């Protein structure tokens, strides 16, 4: 196999938290040379986030940090110091892409804003991820992922009618935003190839949510109709159903899939039963159909139900907990998880490639960096900083 698809790209990751770090990880895992720049004192905030081995917090042992920063080299640089700023500008000269998610205006206050960096490197792509974007009345508002999720209208639809709206699993908003930023960054890479220009990318987390498929703005704008709030579809043979050892997702409300379901449960003759002829009649006679379906389900395990339904191409999936995913036959056959050795935590199994490319690998070239692990290598080797200056910079807390 050749080198990664993005092996010719050099990326500076100034990410603090998930979104910019995940954006840079997507670039790095597919080959880009990523340098993570962290504050020498604090490091990236995800170093404080778990999970930790034995639940003992330690900045070099955060599972989240180790995962988000694999394949990156680590440089610790105090961007509040004049020399640190100068060194960052030197790094920018040699970079194609800079990804950051500081609050709007923060890097400008350090003399490291877009205008300053573009002057240093006119071909630079600077991807800035913020909660609400770089302009507009909420620009400086305080945000958390659940706030953004709520404002996007996605939360409204998630949950039960007589309960509070519910968010998704923690972090999912930021990962989505990070992936959106990675897509935008690749767009700018193509723009640069075609037109020879670098550019600033403004990724508003709120817009990344609202601008996706599940906010129904288009439907509302076209029809004036709002989707019902947190109510069930009320379809027979669809939804989360109980089986002997847990739950299954079943999607068999439509005529074609319903007929397949009848075959799968050994009752094909019910297709001719007028009570079950249409979705509407099935809705009216749902209890009667449940009386047939539920005992069949409760006699069988998720695995048995899944295999039986899939044998008839009925849309379905077992509801699993994450531990079960590790040993699922599909996971094993696809060799999804990867074992990475890190000096502080030893071997740790991580989720692997989100997609597999036949000609250019997704691969783990190195574990996540210790704080400042590659500072000397990068500054000396690539910026030509002399050995004695490195000692001074270290003593001054610049690196």
């Amino acid at each position, binding site marked *: 196999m050749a080198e990664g698809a993005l092996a010719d790209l050099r990326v500076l990751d100034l990410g603090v938290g998930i979104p910019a770090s995940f954006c840079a990880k997507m670039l790095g895992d597919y080959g880009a040379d990523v340098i993570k720049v962290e504050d020498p004192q604090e490091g990236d905030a995800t170093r404080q986030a778990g999970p930790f081995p*034995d639940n003992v917090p330690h900045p070099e042992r955060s599972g989240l940090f180790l995962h988000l920063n694999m394949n990156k080299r680590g440089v610790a640089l105090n961007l509040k110091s004049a020399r640190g700023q100068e060194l960052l500008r030197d790094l920018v000269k040699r970079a194609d892409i800079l990804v950051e998610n500081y609050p709007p205006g923060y890097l400008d206050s350090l003399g490291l804003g877009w205008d300053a960096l573009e002057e240093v490197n006119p071909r630079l792509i600077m991807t800035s991820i913020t909660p609400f974007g770089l302009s507009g009345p909420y620009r400086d508002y305080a945000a*958390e992922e659940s706030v953004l999720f709520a404002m996007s209208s996605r939360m409204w639809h998630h949950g039960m009618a007589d309960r509070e709206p519910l968010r998704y699993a923690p972090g999912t908003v930021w990962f989505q935003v990070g992936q959106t930023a990675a897509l935008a960054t690749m767009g700018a890479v193509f723009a640069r190839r075609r037109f020879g220009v670098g550019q600033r990318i403004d990724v*508003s987390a709120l817009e990344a949510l609202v601008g996706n498929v599940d906010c129904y703005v288009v439907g509302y704008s076209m029809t004036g109709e709002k989707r019902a709030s947190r109510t069930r579809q009320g379809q027979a043979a669809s939804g989360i159903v109980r089986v002997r050892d847990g739950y299954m997702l079943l999607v068999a409300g*439509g005529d074609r899939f319903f007929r397949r379901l009848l075959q799968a449960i050994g009752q094909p003759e019910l297709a001719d039963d007028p009570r079950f002829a249409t979705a509407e009649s099935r809705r009216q006679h749902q209890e009667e159909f449940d009386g047939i379906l539920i005992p069949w389900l409760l006699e069988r395990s998720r695995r048995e139900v899944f295999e039986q339904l899939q044998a008839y191409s009925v849309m379905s999936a077992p509801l699993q907990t994450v531990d079960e995913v590790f040993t699922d036959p599909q996971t094993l056959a696809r060799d999804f998880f990867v074992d990475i050795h890190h000096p502080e935590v030893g071997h740790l199994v991580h989720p692997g490639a989100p997609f597999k490319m036949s000609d250019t690998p997704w691969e783990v070239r190195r574990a996540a960096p210790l704080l400042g692990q590659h500072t000397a290598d990068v500054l000396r080797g690539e910026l030509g900083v002399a050995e004695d200056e490195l000692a001074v910079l270290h003593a001054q807390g610049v690196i």
Partner: protein
Amino acid sequence: MKGLPLEGYRVVDMTEVWAGPFGTSQLGDLGADVIRVESYPRVAQSRPAQARQAPLAGQTTPPRSLPANVGSGGAAPLDAPRPWDRASGYHMTNRNKLGICMNVLDPRGRELFYKLISVSDAFVIGYSAGTATRMGIDYQTLVQHKPDLVMLSFAAWGEQGPYQGYSTIGSGPDAWSGHHELRRYPDLDPSSVPGGLHVDAIASMTIPYAVMAALHSRERTGRGQFIDLSLAEVLMNHIPQPFLAWSMNSELAQPIGNVDPDIAPTGCYPCRDEDTWAVIVVRTDEQWRSLRIGIGDPAWADKPEYDTVAGRVRSRSDIDEHLTRWTRTMTPDEVFAKLQAVQVPAGPVNHVDGTLGDRHLNERGFYRWVTHPITGQYRRPAPPYTLTRTPAQFWRHTNLLGEHNHDVLCGLLGVSDEEYEDLIARGVVGNSYRPEFAIDG
């Protein structure tokens, strides 16, 4: 359209419903010439239920039942002409594309498809694993027509593996990967939350990213490649912490709902009117002090034990009870305004009208009016990011069914007008559906 990053690249799109169509729309946003190939004469999933049910004008075929898969969403008026061009779900996911409607299973249709591939750079297909092979349009076959083709195939569990051919929608990987279990109400079983389509949203960002990574590589190496994308694996990349907690400590992450156990107060609070809510998150002691000011410095909050995170977490239920009394006197927008004024993270749980009317998004020019030949004007969100120097544009309206049959087949692929008429006469190509071919989900 001029001045967009992917000008000059041609992408063939053969996908349904959400993740694939919206993913390839992203490539169109960036300037690629995306040609969507829709199935004919059988009605595809993406032209939603109501469209499929609707009889053609002058006919009286009764509406058929709704399919279970309403993921594509959006109703089309049943009595209007060309209902399949009106369904909002289709508009939501498709823009900046040309559309042809052709039976690729017909030998002539397949030959034309090969010809289309031979002049294209990338092909995205989103059918169940193994389907492309059965259709004769798998990677090994297509590279004979276009040696440096980039082909991306996505399926719920990926192209390879024992679940090849298994059938589901986005909520399948959501259940299978553990995400469903992690997003249920902590005090209720998993049936408390509906099947989730989050994976469609994130895959729609990952699919075009993957295609661009491969095209980028091709610029350097001259080689195309095949991309095997599993929706489940994309989703697992977005929830690494629970997997790491298991692999580190054999500890099973539990659903936490809206409450982060390490901080307080935090959650979704009921507001004045029925079924209105606001989210509030107080992470730091400074935010707690700000919150007190924002809610009018009430006496109940003036307790030393509330001044630290640990103390607030211990008193979570007392604080929530008091805070709820306050939020119940407010609208969500009032909570938002009062707390953001003191820099406390808070926001309304918007319904879609609140999001569409949001003043910040409107001031940023995020919603754009677009005009469609059948449905007229409506607003749609801009692309989910802004390239400041080469901003994406809506340069092609949502494609009508078969709208560009002639342009693509005759203009691009060199089919003669006589041959084109014959393809239509023989039902290989069309631009409207006949009810006898309608299927349900």
